[in-house]
Each structure stands twice: as structure tokens, then as C-alpha cells.
């Protein structure tokens, strides 16, 4: 065991894994990494199982001190990492000497950057997961974001001779392309006229500043309900695009409420959830409809890329 000290926590840094499944019927949504794909790849780069606990940083990264030598990987958006004052590459495993300080800065691209460490962070598991659920104060360290002075336990694993694992640039760019968000038809798309549906799909929406892990609020052309703006409360899936009374879409995200009463016009496909996790305030997005078969094909393609990283020689 060794420790990593939080010198500066950054804007909002939380412990995340792939989520806390199996408790939605008690009102607890899964939470988990906002960009699960980056977390999985980061873990694979350092030789962890892909769901090991890692740090999720948001918009502005933190500063961390490593007590002993560790192998780390940074994935997701480029937060301009510096190790003891020298620039560190993203998307590859790196050797961090004992006593070193890693500093992350403000984002250069999307909203989230992941720090994975070989052996993984050892965090008390709550209902089967270490994932922080900020809204309900579950998981992580006392259910909240990291604070200055927090000490994180790491099950240190070192390879005898360190050799950096690097991912092909093309694989990274294929995984991160984010021109459009693909969606499938929503459960209540019949609540909207064809004109309103057209408006939804041709319009550009801007991510609002009051977006968080619970949901992304979008501003842009308002969508009018043909009739009722409320439904009998029913389960709400991850990535559901709700149209509330105001007409401006809300995308339900990893800490979403488990049930809801607003009509859902569309649903972000599984293969694009990591793109949503990288959106930041003022980003512009458009929705593009695909079939359920098309959504699944994209997910399979993405999984085969992840598998190729897993099976590539160390």
C-alpha cells in the first residue's frame, strides 16, 4: 500500500468506477464515470481491470503528490498534465517517481479527465461500488468530491521493467469523435407533432451552465408538446432527453432521478454516452436519430476497439 495526497482537489474531483447497479428500484441511480470509456481505457493502460476505481476530474484538474513510485495513465480530455514541472502525455502509461507532484490544469478540450493508477485506488465500497453519487452523498470519500489534504490509498503494483503502453492515435480519435449525438426514438415521441420533432433534430442546442452529473440542461429552440406536458410517472433511462413544460431539453445523466414525469422525445445511444460526459457549458450539439439496430452496431464497433486495447501486448 502507498498513498496519493490531494494537494489541490481541482474544481470537482470524485472517485468513480463503472457504477452502482441493482438499486434503481430503491431510487438509487447507478452513477459511475461520466465518460466510462476513458475510465476503462485508462485502467487497461495501467494493467487494471477496466472497472477499477479512478479519479474523475471536471473542467479544472487538481494537484497530487505520490508517496512512492507509481504507474499512472491520464485519459479523457487533455487537462495539460505536468509532472514535476514537465509535460506528461495523455493516453499512455507513465512512470511517476516517489515524491513526485502531478499537476493538472484547466481543460484544453472536453469536461472530464481521468487519472488511473496501477493497482487502483482502494476505496470503501458502498452497495457494491466506490462510485461517488454527489446528489445522494453515497460512495467515494464520505459521498463527496475530494478536498485539499485528502489521502487516497493505492494498492501499488509495479512492473519490474517499466515500458509505456500507448494507444494508437487513430483509435483515440475514433472513440472521441463528437460532432453529433446519436439518439434513438424516445418513449413519448408521439407527444410531439412532426414539425416539433423536425425542429428538435435540425436545431443546435447549447449546454447550459447549470448542467451537472444529474442532467444536462440545454438551451435553444423550444419544443412544444402537442397535448399533455406530463405523463404518469415512470422509470427514466440514462440518456433520456426530456422535454419539460419550458420546452428546452434536459438530458438525464449518470446521477439521474430513477423515475420522472416529463415526456421523453429521444434517448442518447449507449455508444455516445461518453460524448455526453465530455460536454461542457457553452458546447453546441445536435441530435441525430438512428435505429435501434444502428445504435447496437455502433456499440459493438466501439467494444471491439476497447477489446483491441485489452488484447494488445503489454
Amino acid at each position: 500500500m502507498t498513498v496519493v495526497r490531494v494537494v489541490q482537489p481541482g474544481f470537482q474531483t470524485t472517485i468513480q468506477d463503472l457504477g452502482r447497479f441493482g438499486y434503481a428500484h430503491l431510487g438509487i441511480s447507478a452513477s459511475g464515470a461520466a465518460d466510462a470509456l476513458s475510465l476503462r481505457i485508462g485502467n487497461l493502460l495501467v494493467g487494471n481491470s477496466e472497472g477499477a476505481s479512478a479519479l474523475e476530474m471536471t473542467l479544472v484538474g487538481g494537484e497530487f503528490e505520490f508517496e512512492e513510485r507509481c504507474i499512472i495513465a491520464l485519459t479523457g480530455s487533455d487537462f495539460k498534465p505536468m509532472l514535476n514541472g514537465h509535460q506528461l502525455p495523455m493516453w499512455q502509461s507513465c512512470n511517476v517517481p516517489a515524491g513526485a507532484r502531478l499537476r493538472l490544469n484547466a481543460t484544453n478540450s472536453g469536461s472530464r479527465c481521468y487519472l488511473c493508477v496501477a493497482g487502483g485506488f482502494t476505496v470503501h465500497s458502498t452497495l457494491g461500488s466506490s462510485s461517488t453519487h454527489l446528489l445522494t452523498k453515497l460512495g467515494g470519500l464520505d459521498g463527496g468530491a475530494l478536498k485539499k489534504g485528502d489521502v487516497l490509498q493505492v494498492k501499488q503494483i509495479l512492473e519490474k521493467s517499466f515500458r509505456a503502453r500507448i494507444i494508437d492515435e487513430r483509435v483515440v480519435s475514433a472513440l472521441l469523435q463528437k460532432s453529433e449525438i446519436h439518439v434513438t426514438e424516445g418513449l413519448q415521441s408521439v407527444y410531439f407533432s412532426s414539425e416539433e420533432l423536425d425542429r428538435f433534430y435540425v436545431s443546435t442546442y447549447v449546454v447550459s451552465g447549470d448542467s451537472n452529473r444529474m442532467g444536462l440542461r440545454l438551451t435553444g429552440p423550444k419544443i412544444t408538446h402537442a397535448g399533455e406536458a406530463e405523463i404518469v410517472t415512470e422509470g427514466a433511462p440514462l440518456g433520456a432527453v426530456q422535454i419539460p413544460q419550458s420546452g428546452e431539453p434536459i438530458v438525464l445523466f449518470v446521477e439521474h432521478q430513477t423515475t420522472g414525469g416529463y415526456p421523453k422525445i429521444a434517448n442518447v445511444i449507449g455508444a455516445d454516452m461518453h460524448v455526453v460526459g465530455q460536454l461542457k457549458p457553452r458546447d453546441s450539439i445536435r441530435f441525430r436519430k438512428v435505429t435501434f439496430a444502428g445504435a447496437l452496431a455502433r456499440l459493438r464497433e466501439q467494444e471491439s476497439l476497447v477489446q483491441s486495447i485489452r488484447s494488445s501486448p503489454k
Partner: protein
Amino acid sequence: MKIPVSFFPASDCSLLVKFGEGISLDTHKRVSLLTRLLLNEKRKVIRNLHPGYNSILISYDPLATSHSELEMVIRKMLEQDIQAEPNNRSVEVPTCYGDEYSPDLKDVSKHCKLSPEDVIRVHSSAEYTVFFLGFSPGFPYLGGMAAQLSVPRLAIPRTNVPAGSVAIGGNQTGVYPIASPGGWRIIGRTPLRLFDASGDPPTLLQIGDTVKFVPISKSEFDRLSQYR
């Protein structure tokens, strides 16, 4: 009466099973039964179950199963026509309908044209059914409130409703398990913990349980609070 069941793809990794259109105790029993059957399934492909008034949303691993395969499995389950009585409990929720814990009791009383004492009497004399837990951890959607207690939600929701608040919103009543924002009108508070992550199960109430609110005094509330 036979309630028709239908299936809708909700996303590329979730399926909505719907029992009819309305809200009723009969529909609830079907939802509750299927939820229990699916919880016992322990199939790794199912990630989460979200029961509602007349539906269950099932989220699953799309690389391991599909909408149509899951629909087949569930149709078979429902054909079994299981009559086993659910293991539901009745839970008494001690509630202090006192001044500091009931910021909206006067407004509710005015709106319903009932004295505050009558609001308390009507609210605490009914037996409620936990239709499902949703919204936030352990939040019970309760059926069975007297129509005369129906009040509109607050125009501007409170940013912080204390844990244990007993409240009315529209024609529903419920209890806030954790401190959270909320727009329902608060008429009392229970010292019970409705959500405890270290508990097994972590929620006091389960789908299908029946609930009675039992009025207690402020001193009783303080005494019970020590055991939280």
C-alpha cells in the same frame, strides 16, 4: 380483471414493460409482482429495475441480450400466473405534526377548508400503499390519500427540504428520506431514517408495503430521534 401488458424499447439498452394506462391497486400488484420476480432472477444481463405506477423500466446489457429476448423471458414469467402472496409489511411511521416541523400545515388547512387538527386526523387515519420507490433514494410514492387533502405543489420549490419531512404534493403524499430540493407542502416530520446506505436493505420501505402515519408529540419525536 386482465390488465394488458405491452413492451416498448425505451433506449438501446432498456425496455419498458407497461400494464395498461391508469393508476390502480390492481395494476400496482402486477408491477410489484414482476419487480419481485425479476429481482429474484439474478440474471447478470439485467442492470437495473425502475418500477413506476403502471410500468417497469428494465435496463440491461445490450451486448448480452436484446429487447425481443427480454420480452420473451418476461412474457413467460407472467404466464406462470404466480399467486404467492407478497411478503409485504405494514410500517408505522411516527410523525410529529408540530409547528416547527409543519411549515405548510396552515396553508394546507386553509386550502382544504379543514382545521389543522382535521388535516392531521385525515392524513393519519388512512392506510397507504408504497406504489414504488423513485426520484431519490428511498422516496416512497404512496397511494391512498384522501382526495380532500389534495393541494397544489409550491409555486417555487424549496431548495432544501429536511430529511424525514412528510409532505403533500397534488393528490400524493410522501416522505423525503434525505435532505433534498422539493416542491411538496410539508405537514410533519418523522424521526425514522428512510434511507441508510449501510442497512440491508438500505431503505425502510419496500414496494408493496403499507404505511400508516402515527401522530406523536414533540417530546416523543425528540426521544425517538436519539435512536436514529
